[in-house]
């Protein structure tokens, strides 16, 4: 309780520095938040496309239904396969009429359904790579009742390349933003502590124990991180809301996942505390020079 009182007293003693410190933390976290928002939405869009990656095997006319059922069960047992969907000839025709309405009249005039039945294999997340798609296609080709296998080879490879580039750019930019945010938080906490270095020196000369000096600053660092994190969260949410309100095309923009939000604020608190520990430790060390 004493440490908390002292920490709050620290805000009263240096109001301007504390405000600047919290503002700097907020600003750096808003940048992180907006970057996270962009990365999350781009990642989500790519995942949406990836979810459509499927390997389709067209069946021969004379295959037996029980053969398909057995094949379905076997294929579902493979680790990379999420789901095996059987589309009968009739369903294929209905789908074609729905998806290609411009040819609906032609389909109606047909006496025989020319469309083959098919097996649609969806892959699990993490297996939507060109290699896994190839392997799945090979599994499918192994069945004698499969006439042809299609999976859009070039398209899958392009998608995978886009995913890799997006991941790399996110990691580099995210890492850079994170480093800048950490440095900014550290510097602002350090400056606030430096401004009170004389107070620390006096405390030590009087005979204060290290933890007596350190704890209030650590709590202060935590509070700064928390306040900075919450202000940044509010500002990011405001920006997100304004975007959705101003631009109709951003209407389905996703908000950050809860674990990112909680993780971000807690990380800010942790960085605030660690910065305080490091800075105060350095100040304390000056009075024990060897």
């Amino acid at each position, binding site marked *: 309780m004493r440490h908390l009182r002292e920490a709050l007293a620290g805000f009263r003693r240096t109001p301007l520095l504390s405000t600047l410190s919290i503002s700097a933390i907020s600003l750096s976290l808003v940048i992180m938040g907006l970057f996270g928002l962009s990365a999350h939405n781009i990642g989500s869009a790519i995942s949406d496309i990836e979810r459509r990656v499927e390997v389709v095997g067209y069946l021969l006319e004379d295959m037996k239904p029980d053969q398909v059922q057995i094949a379905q069960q076997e294929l579902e047992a493979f680790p990379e396969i999420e789901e095996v969907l059987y589309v009968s000839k009739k369903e294929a025709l209905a789908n074609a009429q729905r998806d290609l309405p411009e040819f609906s009249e032609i389909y109606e005039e047909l006496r025989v359904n020319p469309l083959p039945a098919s097996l649609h294999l969806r892959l699990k997340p993490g297996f939507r790579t060109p290699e896994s798609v190839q392997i799945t296609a090979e599994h499918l080709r192994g069945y004698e009742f499969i006439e042809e296998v299609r999976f859009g080879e070039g398209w899958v490879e392009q998608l995978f390349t886009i995913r890799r580039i997006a991941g790399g750019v996110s990691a580099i930019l995210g890492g850079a933003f994170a480093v800048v945010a950490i440095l900014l938080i550290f510097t602002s906490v350090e400056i606030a502590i430096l401004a009170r270095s004389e107070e620390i020196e006096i405390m030590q*000369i009087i*005979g*204060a124990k290290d933890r007596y000096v350190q704890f209030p600053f650590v709590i202060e660092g935590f509070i700064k991180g928390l306040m900075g994190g919450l202000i940044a969260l509010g500002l990011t949410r405001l920006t997100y809301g304004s975007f959705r309100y101003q631009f109709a095309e951003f209407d389905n923009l996703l908000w950050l996942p809860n674990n990112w939000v909680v993780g971000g604020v807690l990380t800010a608190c942790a960085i605030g505390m660690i910065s305080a520990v490091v800075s105060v430790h350095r100040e304390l060390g000056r009075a*024990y020079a060897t």
Partner: protein
Amino acid sequence: MIQFYNVSKIHPRTGSAVAEISFHLRKGEFTFLTGHSGAGKSTILKLIHFQTRPTKGELQVLRYHSSRTKRRQIPNLRRRVGFVFQDFKLLAGLTAAENVAFALKVTGVSRRETDRKVEQLLNQVSLSEKAKSLSSELSAGEKQRVVIARALATNPLLLLADEPMGNLDAEASEEIFQLFWRLHLEGMAVVMATHNTELVRRTPGVRVLELKNGQLISDSAVETEPLPSVSEGSSLESPPISPPQKPILSASNKNPVPEVSTDVPHESAPSQRENT
């Protein structure tokens, strides 16, 4: 109370600050550390206060040994050894009373006890009427009184003073010195660094350690007692002090308060302050 055994302090960048210093100060003794700027006076005070450790040799302050005292024990030592600076080191935004209370709060004294003790300490330094004045509103002499009150807050056995009159005019210097002297007469050991030779000359019966270029060139006690020597198979647990002698100056000493001559040249300005 304080024992130095061949203590040397060498700064990695600036070189030797003090070399092969040995002396022994007793309980209640008033000691002047004299010498020019850079002679090593401040280094000796920092060594006594464990703000720095010897590069060579060994020193003991109260029951704390330089080679064995852990960092976490140092605050306990510092509560028994008050420190008075030339440049005060008061917290500008606090009043005189709050500056004194700060020391009590830091050392875990209750709020009620703090109020009582602050009043008593400010009385002791004759500054009760300025209790509510901000430290920035006080004169240099008054500031130094607050610093002394703060140093006394933890009931120290020893007061270290680094050029305490260095920033004061002659009148304030005299008042502050008389305050130190009074504390000494009440039983407090005082080690005061000064290069005011006139003050030292006019103060009878005190211990004077004179330093030059980091070396102890004279010790007023040497004429009457031998300095302890480590080379004679002694250990710090049983310092080789023999035979027991009458203290040079003790609490029972009835010496009158010596006056600080007004024609004494002023001690160094802050810019001239030694950095040793």
